[in-house]
């Protein structure tokens, strides 16, 4: 009698890694991170500024992010994205439940649904400009900024992680397409 299949191997949407185009441009795929989507009910939004997740307040300014791990991005008036490279989704979920207390909220694990690609270097803005209509210059999109937008016809969240580093969070099914698209745009930029 055969043994029942007890374990399913886990595989990321894209293998970690990336490509260096030049001193001023690098494209990477981040390893899969725990990602949770927190939605807070409208009637509880008035006390959102008192919520602490692992000691960190939720960002309450529109299109802003805070924290190092978890990184917490406000992507809608009532929605935050929490990402952690160091902690399991279950642990982050516990922290969120504790932080939100008796408020009306929902937390959904979307760790498998999203993939994060990063663009680094002085030319990263120029690459993104080829597929995104937003002004991503430092004056308009500073280092605490994040936003939902469209990049290469895809819905994405773009976060400016640092001065010359952007994270593009995209649905896993479209991650390969976005990676190929960014690669093509970067190649064209460094070749031109």
């Amino acid at each position, binding site marked *: 009698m055969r043994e029942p299949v007890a374990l399913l191997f886990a595989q990321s949407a894209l293998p970690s890694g990336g490509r260096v185009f030049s001193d001023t441009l690098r494209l990477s795929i981040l390893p899969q991170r725990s990602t949770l989507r927190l939605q807070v009910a409208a009637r509880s939004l008035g006390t959102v500024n008192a919520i602490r997740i692992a000691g960190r307040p939720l960002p309450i300014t529109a299109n802003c992010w805070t924290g190092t791990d978890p990184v917490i991005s406000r992507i809608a008036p009532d929605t935050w994205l929490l990402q952690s490279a160091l902690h399991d989704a279950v642990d982050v979920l516990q922290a969120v439940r504790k932080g939100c207390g008796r408020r*009306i909220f929902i937390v959904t694990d979307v760790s498998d649904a999203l993939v994060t690609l990063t663009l680094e270097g002085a030319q990263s803005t120029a690459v993104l400009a080829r597929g995104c209509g937003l002004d991503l210059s430092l004056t*308009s999109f500073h280092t605490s900024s994040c936003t939902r937008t469209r990049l290469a016809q895809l819905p994405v969240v773009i976060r400016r992680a640092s001065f010359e580093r952007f994270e593009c969070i995209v649905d896993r099914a479209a991650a390969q397409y976005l990676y190929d698209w960014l690669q*093509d745009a970067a190649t*064209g930029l460094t070749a*031109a």
Partner: protein
Amino acid sequence: MGYRLEHGGHIDRSHPIHIRWNGRPLEAFAGDTIASALLANGVRIVARGMKLHRPRGILSAGIEEPNALVTLGRDAELEPSARATMIPVRDGLEVCAQNAWPSVERDFGRVLDATAPLWHAGFYNKTFKWPSWNFYERWIRRTAGIANPPRKPDPARYDAVNSHCDLLVVGGGPTGLLAAQVASRAGLAVVIAEQDFECGGRLLATNTLINGAPVAVWFTSVLGELATSRHFTLLTATTAFGLYDHGSAGLLQRLDLQGDAPPIRQRYWRVHAKQTLLATGAIEQPLVFDYNDLPGVMLAGAIRQYVNRYAVAAGRNIVFATNNDSAYLAALDLVAAGAPVQLLVDSRAEAPAQLAGWLRAQGVEVRAGTSLVKAIGKDDLRAIQLSTGEEIACDALGMSGGWAPTVHLHSHARAPLAFNEVRQCFLPRDAKAGLLAAGAVAGCITLDESFADAMRAAERVLEQAGRPKDPQVARPVVEEPPVAEQVGAFHRPIEGKSDRQWLDFLHDVTVADAEIALSEGYTHIEHLKRYTTCGMAADQGKTSNLNALLTVAGMTGRHPAEVGTTTYRPPFTPITLGALAGRQIGERYAPRRLLPAHAEHQALGAHWWEAGGWMRPACYPRAGEDAHRAVQREAAAVRADVGIFDASPLGKIEVSGTDAARFLDRFYINNVAKLDEGRVRYGLMLNENGVVIDDGTVARLNRNHFLVTTTSGGAGRIGQWLEEWRQCEWPNLNVFVSPVTTQWTTVAVAGPRARDLLARFASDIAIDAKSFPHMSLADGRFAGAPARLYRVSFSGELGYEINVPARHGAALWRELLSAGADLGVTPYGVETALLLRLEKGFLHVGVDTDGTTAPADIGWGEVAARKKGDFIGKRSLRRLDNLRPDRLQLVGLTADDARILVPGAHLRLNGTTDGSDGWVTSAAMSPALGRPIALALLRGGRARQREQLTVHDLDRRCPATVVDPRFFDPEGVRLHA
């Protein structure tokens, strides 16, 4: 005939360049355009008119050129209809004339000119009727158009980029540069778009002094300063082709003009500017007289530009005809350069004293109160005839009918124009917020006025940007001849031959065509434009619209303002499809979504099907199988043993909250609020019109937590639909909507041995028939992974859907195949899944329904009627139209001929002799039943069981019978195993 002057011009005589014109080698210099090179080499005829194939010469020196459209390159690099006036020469460039055979000098098409009266405006509406259009079609298609497109795929790469700035300046002439300098010094981010390959605008055609020095010194200084700014972008060879809402502009940058095969050929810039300044200048207008289309007849300003910029004289015996002062400046520059000018005729009663005096002092005769009535010559200009009757021999004529401001972009932005009596042209009227015009486009005549206007515009820009109005830039001091604003009245020789007086050179439209249009009642300028095609050619009427308008005004006794202009729309100049496509070609044409087990499907030899952006296996043909055989085999395998199907694109939405049940009940026509935990219900969603928009399942995980599934194509749409109602209509409900489609891999396991296969995996979910009946959901673990297990079926067989986090998707697929090998497990694709559901008569929303299908049309009328609570679309179900008995209703069909019983085939009831009573929506050869089956929407179908009808597919027909759509296992025995 034109020739190169020994001195002068901005060309680099130390850098000779060789091009080929119709196979003939020509010499040019760096800095030449194709047009200046052709003129310098004495080429007179560069093209043939579109309709009559009359010889055409170079008319202008800029983007308004209607005649000198040439073909560049060959094979895949072939570029038709390039403006010779805008393309700089480069070594090895091949240039060919268009629209002529066997040569542009001797074109067989000239016979059309001999029969010109047959081809007047609207002739195609009155001719080619007998015996039929098709009789003439092949010949007409051969002769239509002016160029041949490339036949090979374009190997070039194109790019598109978004750019943001504080100020977009369209035009890199003196006005634009000065305004940009002011704005840049104030710290604004500035983009200049200049259509020429170098900045300068009209100053490139003049010898004006700025601040006591040649213009080149001023340009170098300003451009040098701008280049040091980090927030300044200069785009040359870049045409602003459209102005759109919210300060958006479309620019086309050509990167292929200077060298061979650049990495990017053209770039489409989408500029988002807080403010836009139009410094687009003005376009000189032709005069209207008999045979004004002859080679050798050019615009006066163009002749001036060819001398000053390219050191090319347009002829060896040049005359000018004008109704304004600018032609005097052209004549003076030619004389100064040593080009032979004989005469200038001015239609105004008096010539400008100072300018005329200077010309006469140089030996040029000036006649005022005299107009031009005719150009004389067979294939090119030999002489002109004046209103006095005198004929004057010449080989080049510079004509000037005034200057029309280039207001196209201003009109794109829906900003109004006003007719100026003094200038006899339309000027921008009021500025729109964020849009300004300055310089010649705003009506300035002299450079000094343009500089003043540029400063005023720049100050307004600074004010709008919240910067101090102090420009910090001194207005340049200009030394230029006096030029008056007054332009002579438009007129044409009434006694002349109106069918030889051209308005639109590119489309061969004459004054006679306008007369015909008016006589046939097309008095509105928009109608006249379309009836005559005046202004509809590739030059978009840049040298014809105004003359046509003034001609119509004169003929109808109306004021030009009353006649009005036609509507200017983008693009200002032709743009390539390649630039619009940018990087989105081939594999990157549209986003593609991949399944978690994509590589596994690929390894199995899947035939791929793109559906809703997802790449999905249609089937998995084995060696020697085509797709049809593969589908038949897979379907049979599912019915006999077990099959697995990757259903990951299935829409999955979590709906939770204390009001989740109430919320969802408002979307479905059936009751979901009372669903028990662990149970699943199939439901239909309607829009407000009562039309079926999606179907799927609702499963209850716990009291306040539901899982909604939708069609794969509806995942995003239904998620947004739920959110819209939640946020906008019912914000007080305590409910959350959370899409999780790609968080989970979904694999359907279907067939009599499905339970056996699942039992081979470790799980804490009991799957025996009693614990887990049909339409159940359980949450737990499956093979060590968190899982949600459904017992549902789209195939009609015992069926499950295993949902595990997407990271396990590939492994799940592999393990199912491995664990089920001895059970005969067969992977099956989308085509097979659709065949299996068709055999069961299961609905496929969007295929078996259309934009009118209501629940009653597909057999769900009673379910909807029974529901007491309100739901979206309920009220519309009571509309009289929804109660008609002859509505299109879903039925099953059987027939003998699978070749004719196909989706889209139309149905005719017995007794119907024309029209259609419905159509086939889904059809296939059923392996389970051994015959063709179909679903169809049939008029009054539900009352027509067992009726015979006829299926029509193109010119084929066959009989069919209306049957119950539950073709296979109608009692659902296999489903409930």
